[in-house]
C-alpha cells in the first residue's frame, strides 16, 4: 500500500465521521480526564471562596477596577520618573568625565584632532547620552512591570480593558504590550507574542509606536516645561507641564485605537482571529527571577541593541557637525534645505534633520538639535531651562505652535531603528515592516501639517 492510498483512505473515512468528530474527540478526552481526576484528587473539607476570588472581585469591580488600575499605573510612572532622575545624572557625569579624560589622553598621545573628535565627541558621546537617558528608567520600570506580571495582575488589566480594544478590533492583551512600550517600543513589539491570534497580534505590533517610549519622554517633558508650563502662572507650571505630557499620551492612546480600528477593517481584514484570555491564579513573585528577567533579559537586551545602533549614529552626527563647506557645516546645509518642508509642518529644518539622524535612537534628538543651533561641533545639552529658552525661543524663533507640533511629531513619527528591526524579526515580512515604519510617519506629517495650517489660518 502506498502512502497516497493511506491518505485517500483517511479522507474517505473522514467523510463518514461527520463534521463534529473533532468535538467528540475533545469531549471524550475531557471526560476521561474528569474520570481520572476524580479518582486521584480528594478534597478535604468544604471548598471555600478563596483569597484569589476575593482579590479578583476588587480588581475587576465595576467601581474600583479602573481607578485602581490607573492608580497603579500612575505609581509605577511616578517611581520611574522620580527614581531615575539622580542615577541618570550620576551616570551622565561619570560617562562625560570619561569622555574628557579620553579626549585629553588622545591629545597627549598626539592623535589627530578629527580622530579624537570622531571617537570621543562623536561615538562615545552618543553612547553616553543614550545610556544615561535610557538605562535608569528602564532599570526601574521593567522590574516594577515584571512584579505586576508575576503577581498575575496584568491579565486582569487586559480583562478590564478588553471591551475598548474589542471595539477597535484588537485584543485586550494589547494593553500590556502598550504598557511595555512606555519602557521601550522594541520590547513592546516583542511582548505582543502573548497575543495568540494572528490579526490582533499584527495590530498590536503596528500600533505600538503610538505609545511614547522613555527615549521620547524627556523631549516631551522638556517641551511641556518650557512652553506649556511657562504659559501659565508659576504656581500651576508643573501641573500644566505634567498635564500636557499626559495629554500627549492620551492622544497617543486615541491614535492607537483609531489606527487599530482602521487596520482591522482594511489591510488586516483577511486575517483570522480568536480570543482567549486566561486569568491565572495570583502567585507570590520570586524576587530573584524578577531581577534577572527584567534586568538581564529586558533592560540589558534593549540597551545593547540601542548601543549597537547609536554608536554609528554618533559618528555620523560628528561628521555632519564638523565638516564645513562654504562657511557652514554639512548639518547646517542639510537643515537649510529641509527648512521649507519643516516650516509647513510647524517645525523647522533643524528639527527634521535631528529626527533623521535620530532614527537609530530617539534619545539623541534634543542634543543633536542643540548642536546645530549653537553651531557646536558635538551634541550639546543646555545648562539650564533659561539657557534652553534663550537658544530655542529667542535665537531660533520657537513658539507654542512649534512645541505643540514637535510634541505631536515626536509622538507619531516613525519607530526608531531598533523597533523597526524588531518588527521585522517578529513578522518576518517586509510588507508589515514597511507599513509599521511608514504609516506612523505619514500620520505624523499629516497631523502636524493640519495643526500648523489650522494655527496659521486662525492667526
Amino acid at each position, binding site marked *: 500500500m502506498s502512502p497516497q492510498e493511506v491518505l485517500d483512505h483517511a479522507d474517505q473515512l*473522514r467523510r463518514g465521521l461527520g463534521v463534529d468528530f473533532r468535538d467528540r474527540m475533545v469531549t471524550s478526552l475531557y471526560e476521561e480526564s474528569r474520570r481520572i481526576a476524580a479518582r486521584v484528587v480528594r478534597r478535604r473539607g468544604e471548598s471555600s471562596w478563596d483569597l484569589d476570588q476575593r482579590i479578583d472581585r476588587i480588581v475587576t469591580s465595576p467601581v474600583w477596577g479602573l481607578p485602581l488600575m490607573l492608580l497603579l499605573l500612575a505609581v509605577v510612572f511616578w517611581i520611574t520618573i522620580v527614581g531615575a532622575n539622580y542615577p541618570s545624572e550620576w551616570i551622565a557625569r561619570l560617562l562625560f568625565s570619561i569622555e574628557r579624560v579620553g579626549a585629553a589622553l588622545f591629545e597627549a598621545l598626539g592623535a589627530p584632532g578629527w580622530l579624537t573628535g570622531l571617537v570621543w565627541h562623536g561615538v562615545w558621546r552618543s553612547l553616553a547620552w543614550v545610556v544615561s537617558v535610557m538605562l535608569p528608567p528602564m532599570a526601574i520600570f521593567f522590574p516594577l512591570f515584571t512584579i505586576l506580571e508575576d503577581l498575575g495582575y496584568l491579565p486582569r488589566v487586559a480583562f478590564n480593558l478588553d471591551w475598548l480594544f474589542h471595539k477597535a478590533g484588537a485584543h485586550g492583551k494589547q494593553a500590556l504590550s502598550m504598557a511595555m512600550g512606555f519602557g521601550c517600543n522594541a520590547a513592546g513589539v516583542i511582548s505582543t507574542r502573548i497575543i495568540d491570534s494572528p490579526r490582533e497580534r499584527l495590530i498590536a505590533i503596528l500600533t505600538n509606536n503610538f505609545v511614547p517610549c522613555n527615549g521620547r519622554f524627556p523631549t516631551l517633558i522638556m517641551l511641556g516645561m518650557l512652553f506649556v508650563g511657562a504659559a501659565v502662572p508659576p504656581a500651576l507650571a508643573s501641573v500644566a507641564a505634567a498635564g500636557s505630557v499626559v495629554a500627549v499620551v492620551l492622544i497617543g492612546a486615541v491614535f492607537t485605537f483609531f489606527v487599530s480600528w482602521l487596520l482591522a477593517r482594511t489591510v488586516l481584514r483577511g486575517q483570522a482571529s480568536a480570543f482567549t484570555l486566561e486569568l491565572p491564579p495570583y502567585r507570590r513573585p520570586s524576587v530573584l527571577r524578577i531581577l534577572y528577567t527584567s534586568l538581564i533579559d*529586558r533592560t540589558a537586551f534593549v540597551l545593547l541593541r540601542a548601543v549597537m545602533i547609536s554608536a554609528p549614529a554618533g559618528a555620523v552626527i560628528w561628521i555632519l557637525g564638523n565638516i564645513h563647506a562654504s562657511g557652514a557645516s554639512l548639518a547646517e546645509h542639510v537643515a537649510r534645505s529641509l527648512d521649507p518642508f519643516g516650516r509647513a509642518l510647524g517645525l523647522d529644518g533643524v528639527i527634521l534633520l535631528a529626527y533623521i539622524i535620530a532614527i537609530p535612537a530617539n534619545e539623541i534628538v534634543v542634543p543633536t538639535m542643540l548642536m546645530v543651533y549653537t553651531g557646536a561641533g558635538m551634541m550639546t545639552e543646555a545648562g539650564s531651562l533659561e539657557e534652553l529658552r534663550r537658544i530655542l525661543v529667542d535665537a531660533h524663533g520657537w513658539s507654542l505652535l512649534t512645541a505643540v507640533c514637535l510634541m505631536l511629531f515626536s509622538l507619531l513619527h516613525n519607530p526608531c531603528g531598533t523597533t523597526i528591526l524588531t518588527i521585522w524579526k517578529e513578522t518576518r515580512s517586509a510588507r508589515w515592516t514597511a507599513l509599521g515604519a511608514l504609516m506612523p510617519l505619514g500620520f505624523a506629517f499629516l497631523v502636524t501639517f493640519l495643526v500648523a495650517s489650522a494655527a496659521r489660518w486662525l492667526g
Partner: protein
Amino acid sequence: MSKQAASTPDCARCPAGPGRLRPLGDRRAAFDYLVALAGNPNTGKSSIFNALTGLRQHVGNWPGKTVTRAEGGFSYDGVSFKLVDLPGTYSLLSASEDEEIARNFILFGRPDCTVVVMDATVLERNLNLALQIIEITDKVVLCVNLMDEAARKGLEVDVRTLARELGVPAVATVARTKAGLGGLVATIAGVCRGEIVCRPRRPAVDGKLEEAVAQLVPMIESVAPGLPNARWVAFRLLDGDHRLRRALLTGELSRLVSEQAAPVERAGRLIAIEGAQ
C-alpha cells in the same frame, strides 16, 4: 510500570543527593539524552526548567510566558541531559503555532523522555494534555507540580493512583522549594535509560471514530513499519494534519522509526523543528 516509578512519590520531599544533580546552564555541548518539557500555561513549567538547569530562563523569553523554545542542560549520575522547554498549551489538537511547535517537537524532535508538568490544583484540565501526549509517545514522566498550593486549597493528590491510571511514572514536586526534584530527575534518567518501562493506557474513543482508527492503523503500520504511535498518527490523518500528511508522503515518518531504532550519535545533533522561531 516498574517498581521504581511507583516508589518515586515517597521521595517527594527528599533533596537531590549532593553532587548528583548538576545544573549545566545553557552549555551547548554534547549530551546523552534529550528531554522535552511540556505542560499547560501557568503550571510552573519555567520554574522546573530553571531549577533543573540553573538558568533563569533564556534571553528572549518575554512576558512571563515561554514564547520561544528555551534550552538548557543538567547532568545526573554523570550522564548529561539536554532539556527543551516547549510552549505552554492546553491541547495539541488545534492549529495554533504554539501547539504545532510542541506537537512537532514531541514527534519529530524524538526526545528520549517527555516531562508533562501538571498543576496539582487543577489536575482535570491538565490531564487533557497529558492524555494527548501519551498518545504520541510512551516515554513520559508526569510531574505534578504546585503540590503546596493544592495542600493549601485542601486538595490531596495521590500521584501513585495517577501513575497507575495513565501507565506512566508520576512525581510530586514543589518547584519553588525544589522539593521532589531529585525524584523527578531520577525518574527522567530511568525512563531515558530504559530502566523504567512505560505502558501508557490509551483510552478508547467513541465507536465510529475508534472503528475508523482501527481501519487506518494497519495501513499506516504497513507504510511505516514499527511506528510506535500509529494510533495517534491515524487520529491526526483523520483530523487532516497537513504536516503529518507530508511526513507520511515523503517517508519522513518511516525514517523516524529507523533512526529511533539505531542508537545515534547525540553529540551536536541538530534539533531543528519547523515553525519554531
